[in-house]
């Protein structure tokens, strides 16, 4: 069975959680950083995505803390989430490698 290609926002969120657990605002700033400032997630979009990813069991809650009377919930990748991210990264890498190789053949890049 083939797996559908992941949306870029989903890929970036999972990437932001790949190294360590992060809270919502941390994910937003990290995604902006990872994408070189190109992708700026809105809070509504982020929490819709987080809820969906939790439903798909790709992420889970790591721990919660209260900072300045505000709840802060940290999320982390599940083993299934890590595997899915690794598979997607490999797919993108294979595509990119093929594209670069063909460009080289055509003399598009050095």
């Amino acid at each position: 069975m083939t797996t559908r290609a992941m949306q870029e926002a989903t890929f970036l969120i999972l990437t932001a959680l790949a190294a360590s657990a992060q809270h919502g605002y941390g994910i937003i700033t990290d995604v902006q950083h990872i994408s070189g400032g190109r992708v700026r997630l809105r809070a509504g979009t982020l929490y819709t995505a987080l809820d969906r990813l939790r439903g798909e069991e790709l992420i889970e809650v790591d721990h919660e803390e209260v900072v300045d009377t505000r709840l802060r919930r940290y999320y982390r990748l599940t083993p299934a989430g890590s595997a899915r991210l690794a598979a997607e990264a490999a797919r993108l890498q294979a595509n990119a490698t093929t594209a670069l190789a063909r460009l080289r053949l055509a003399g598009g890049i050095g």
Partner: protein
Amino acid sequence: MTGAAGLERGYRRLLACYPAWFRSEHGEELVGVLLAGARDGQQRPGLAESASLLRSALGMRLRPDASPAAGQGWADALAAFSLAGPVLLLATTVFAAVAWSHDLGPGRFTTLLGLPGFWIMLGFQVVLAALVLVGLRRAALVMTAVYLLAICQSVDFLILPFHLWSPQEGVSLVAISVCILELAALLGSPGPRRGRDLVHWGYGVVLLLCAPALATQTAVIYLILPRHPRVTLLLMVIVAAVIARLARAFGLSRHFRLLLAALACPYFLNMANWVFGWFWFDLDYSQWLALLVAGPALAAAIALISTVRPRRRRII
């Protein structure tokens, strides 16, 4: 009121657009993130942020797949139907009464409003809808059974004067089909109170489309079929396909969609009968009616058996 307090209040107002389960799960967390991302001195939510929150809330309400209450299986589909069925029936009758409120002339059908017994039928439907909306399962069960018996007693009177389908016959057929499924829904599920936890905006949108579609089917057949049978069949298929696609897109459970499909069975069967000239070996009206409602009856039986079987396994 300080700027920060005003900003928080603005975000909380926007948050009110989200479903309750989402607010209780993520509300405080989301407000914290929104405030953390706000500019220094910002006093109210920005336009882009507000639009994003509203779009996200609307999407959540129309397709709440992630909702912990999102039901699966026959029991939950029946619970949702126990609430939605009578409301759909009432809406269909109202649509039919409004759409066909003018007599179309000699040889055409009379208006629904002028039909003897129409107001009694409407009264039954209003009471049944009220009972399920307030969550009275047993009272709704009794009412459904009484209504089904009453309409089966009167259906000959309703349909005999008409050679082709008329709105009167159509509404009676919807009522019988809904009542059969409603009996199964009330017997085989926790009932309309559980249904209230499961039903969301998506159900409302789909039911609002189903009601006029059901209400106009019979009249469409009556008016167009004799001249353009294949066009009529094509129209019916297109309408059914669009509603089925929307029902899926809005996150209605697969089992609930099957129950809705069962409601359309009599129309397609009748249509096929006319288009292909089957006429089913000259069945009389009561036999033909029994055949027409076989689809909803079969769906009700399958759903009911599916909800009873696992319980027996657990007892063993």
